[in-house]
């Protein structure tokens, strides 16, 4: 399922949890290649011989020694993991991190990108005022042609042992791609697939307040849509469950994932009616990524499924 994996890392402790998943996945799936990829910074201008470190903002001179040093640091960081990995390649490139990650994924036709949620370690309180997820993660999830697996907490179960996969949908077109990935993964590892939708009754927006009858109608309509859009495409796959809850979508997704002891949450990366090229990471996905106890896969295109 994952022949070529790209693990995009800041080579800092914030990516340690993602690293474990990446190396484990490559091992269990006997992947043809695992690229351990790091972009230390971008040139200060054009073809400048200086780069600005993307984490600290410090200016560094680009020299073969500097690049060798980074390469060596990467090897030290992932020393034991690299020793056990047969088909790994450590690659360092200078440029804008999100652009280089996407370029690398495209050039090498990777099946899966694995990333941490943050570039640097943040206090939980600070995420309130900052971009809630790393901007590189956001840009990669927005434009990647393959699924992006985002790890923000330690994952205690390896992918092949996943037994509960939650697919959360807003019925948008990209959600169709996410469904395909979720179903393929569930079939591959023999997991139960939970098809979930949250009817938004948060009352955060101006408009007519929903009464009980309205809510029940919406729940029934969502269930029908679920049958038409997804169940009809499942063929003989019957290890699934449908759930429609009402509330604030990201809260309901998290509550449902917890309730079902989910090992993986799969979502399309933006809300409906938005062109994939122009879409920002959906607010719901952002909230779920950082608060979820399990990994979250963001999928929005069918190209590499």
């Amino acid at each position, binding site marked *: 399922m994952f022949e070529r994996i790209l693990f995009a890392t800041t080579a800092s402790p914030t990516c340690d949890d993602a690293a474990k998943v990446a190396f484990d996945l490559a091992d269990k799936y006997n992947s043809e290649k695992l690229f351990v990829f790091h972009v230390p910074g971008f040139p200060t201008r054009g073809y400048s011989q200086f780069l600005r470190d993307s984490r600290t903002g410090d200016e560094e001179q680009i020299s073969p020694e500097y690049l060798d040093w980074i390469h060596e640091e990467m090897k030290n960081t992932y020393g034991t993991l690299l020793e056990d990995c047969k088909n790994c390649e450590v690659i360092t490139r200078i440029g804008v991190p999100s652009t280089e990650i996407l370029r690398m994924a495209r050039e090498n036709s990777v099946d899966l990108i694995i990333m941490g949620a943050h570039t640097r370690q943040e*206090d939980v309180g*600070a*995420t309130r005022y*900052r971009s809630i997820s790393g901007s590189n993660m956001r840009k990669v999830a927005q434009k990647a042609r393959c699924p992006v697996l985002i790890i923000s907490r*330690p994952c*205690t179960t390896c992918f092949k042992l996943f037994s509960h996969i939650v697919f959360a949908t807003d019925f948008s077109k990209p959600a169709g791609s996410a469904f395909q990935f979720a179903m393929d993964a569930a079939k591959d590892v023999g997991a139960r697939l939970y098809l979930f939708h949250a009817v938004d009754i948060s009352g955060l927006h101006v408009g007519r307040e929903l009464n009980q009858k309205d809510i029940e109608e919406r729940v029934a309509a969502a269930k029908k849509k679920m049958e038409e859009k997804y169940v009809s495409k499942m063929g003989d796959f019957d290890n699934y469950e449908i759930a429609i809850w009402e509330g604030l979508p990201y*809260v309901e997704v998290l509550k449902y994932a917890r309730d079902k002891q989910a090992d993986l949450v799969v979502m399309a990366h933006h809300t409906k009616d938005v062109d994939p090229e122009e879409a920002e990471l959906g607010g719901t996905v952002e909230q779920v990524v950082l*608060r979820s*106890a399990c990994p979250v896969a963001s999928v929005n295109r069918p190209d590499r499924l």
Partner: protein
Amino acid sequence: MSEREFSGIIDMNLVILEKSGGILYGGKEIGEGALMCLSHQVELEEGYVLRSYFSMLTKYPIFQKLNAFFSSYLERVESSPEEGCEYPGIEHLELVKTVEMIGYPGKPKMEIYTTLKAVAGNETSEIDSIHLESLLDMPVKLGKLKHIVLGDRVDTFEFQTVFTLFEFIDGIAWELGFHGRPVQCQLRR
């Protein structure tokens, strides 16, 4: 009588959070006007624990609208043991306010936020890996204000500060919203 109570001026703007979940204003428990007290500064009664926080939410349900996760937390508190929900190696939980000057990335800026940390001796640690059920009977204390200048987290300045009732309710709720570790995976297999 504390210096603050003695002055009588600041006292006008002070609420005391009881261990039982009640809120005292001017020595009397507040009723329907709970929302008016959100901007008041808080003091915690001796023996205040995290469970007291949830008792307050039960006693003043209007506060439950401040965070979308409250209903699920209260369900978990309801199903937890009534006592003994403590985590070994932690002395208490401390709500800290941070003022951080940031120079990079982006334009220079200043951010002010609260954080709930575990304290043991002189050490503080994150609590996001500890389940709510293991924290309910841990004492809660109000900490100081930390001033971090341009990313220097080693030489920080610390000052006495006050917390409003809103900062207290919202700060703890925000922190708990990021809790969770997939312990269920380990338990299941």
